[in-house]
């Protein structure tokens, strides 16, 4: 874990309202793994007070990338940084995706900005595994496909691709692949993750053996395990919460209650 001030290299708007920030940070680039996150101090003083967590979107040589939209004050400030401005980064944080495991087909599922961690995961997996992806959003403009391989799109209003949610699309398509050893990597809103969890459990009850890792979110004060602010129910022990920042943000879908 490091705390380091690193310069912005460039900010690009990859599609309307979605920003990609390139930051030169060799120290972070060297250590971070897909699915981990960074806790960013967006301003010099204490307004806003807390750091803002962001998934590592991609790493290329000495550079790291963040993907975000303008959600509130913090992301607005972040989007106004110029080339050379320093950004104070705390990380790498949390446990990322376990992508070394034994599987033939990687399935990426991303809802909206849940697309953020996949470019880096794709970079790590692309020469080793077959990958199919499902990306979704309420409407066409919310779907993010940036550096996501081999994707099918679902929109709830039907403005692009399958009409419905991304998990319904997944359920329909995965039937063609069930003979393979599948590992699912998913990131998106809680509702999507919950639907996915139910879907995977259903399939596994039919005798399939899909593994599924999900990247979860919560409000966070510290991001490194000292505030106890980010609990998620442990599926195996009713008296225990996991901490999303430290034990996650990526969990095996069987280990948490959404």
């Amino acid at each position: 874990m490091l705390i380091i001030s690193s310069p912005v290299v460039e900010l690009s708007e990859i599609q309307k309202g979605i920003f990609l920030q390139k930051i030169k940070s060799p120290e972070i680039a060297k250590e971070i793994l897909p699915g981990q996150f960074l806790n960013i101090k967006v301003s010099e003083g204490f307004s806003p007070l807390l750091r803002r967590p962001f998934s590592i979107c991609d790493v290329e040589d000495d550079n790291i990338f963040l993907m975000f939209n303008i959600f509130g004050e913090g992301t607005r400030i972040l989007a106004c940084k110029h080339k050379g401005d320093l950004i104070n980064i705390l990380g790498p944080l949390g446990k990322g995706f376990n992508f070394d495991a034994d599987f033939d087909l990687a399935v990426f599922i991303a809802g909206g900005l849940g697309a953020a961690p996949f470019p880096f995961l794709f970079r790590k997996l692309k020469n080793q595994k077959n990958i199919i992806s499902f990306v979704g959003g309420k409407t066409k403009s919310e779907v993010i496909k940036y550096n996501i391989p081999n994707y099918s799109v679902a929109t709830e209003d039907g403005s692009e691709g399958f009409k419905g949610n991304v998990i319904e699309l997944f359920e329909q398509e995965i039937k063609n692949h069930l003979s393979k050893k599948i590992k699912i990597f998913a990131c998106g809103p809680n509702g999507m993750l919950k639907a996915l969890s139910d879907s995977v459990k259903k399939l596994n009850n039919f005798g399939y053996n899909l593994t599924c890792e999900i990247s979860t979110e919560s409000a966070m004060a510290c991001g490194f395990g000292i505030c106890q602010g980010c609990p998620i129910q442990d599926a195996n022990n009713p008296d225990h919460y996991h901490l999303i920042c430290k034990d996650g943000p990526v969990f095996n879908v069987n280990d948490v209650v959404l």
Partner: protein
Amino acid sequence: MKTIDLSVKIGKLKLKNPILLASGTVGYGNEMSDFIDLNILGGIITKSISLKPRKGNKPQRIVETSAGMLNAIGLANVGLEEFINEKIPFLAKYDVPIICNIAASSIEEYVECVKSLDSENTIKAFEINVSCPNVKEGGLQFGNNLTMVGKITERVRAVTDKTLIIKLSPNVSYISEFAKICKENGADAVSAINTLVGTAFNINTRKPKLSNIFGGLSGPAIKPIALAKVLEIHLSVDIPIIGVGGIMNWQDIIEFMIVGAAAIQLGTLNFIDPTASVSILKGLYNYCSERNIESISKLTGSYILE
């Protein structure tokens, strides 16, 4: 470099500098040790421990507010047994005083916790949390009841010779009355303040943002209140005060010491900058050095009111 004595005393406890890390904002030290050498600190106050592990409140536990944050953690902690077996051995490796904070839902539980921990050499002092706003039993029920605070102090005092600190609630009319009762019942010091009760609602759903509805406000927003509480105690009770609430830099520490704090605690700041104590120590040194203050403890209560 001049030699400036940054050490301070709290009861029998000598600290190499006035910087303590506040309970609930350092866990049990291990995560912080990834960022700083814990030995530079004046001391570490561990997360409130109860007799049995506590799961804590349901999410959402944290809300950011203007210049502050609300938390409703609900005293989630590993419980006495795991604390002794797993957490103390790590802390024992450091040459830094460990102050063990205890939260309980009955006087007996406080007494039992202190008794069980009193023989641990690593623990140099106890801080009794009678002021957590986020739990149903104990917490504020005790924190704003003078008789209760007096009793807890008396009963805990009877089972330990270690430095005994009572952590006071700001959610009372006159905090100095509580400090007085602590002193009368044998406390060595008081910490002021714990968090202030607050809440936040979502205007779209009309629901509270915290599952617990109410939470404790901390951060820079509460500093003026904390300063006023420290001063109020200092003006009327002769007891060492540990100032806590909204400290973000060395200037804030000097201010707390001037109004009466013998030592201070860093809380919310640890979440944002776990390395803050390094630069803060330099700031304190320079302030004293530039003004020929040989010993930082001279600042305590050095206010000039006219």
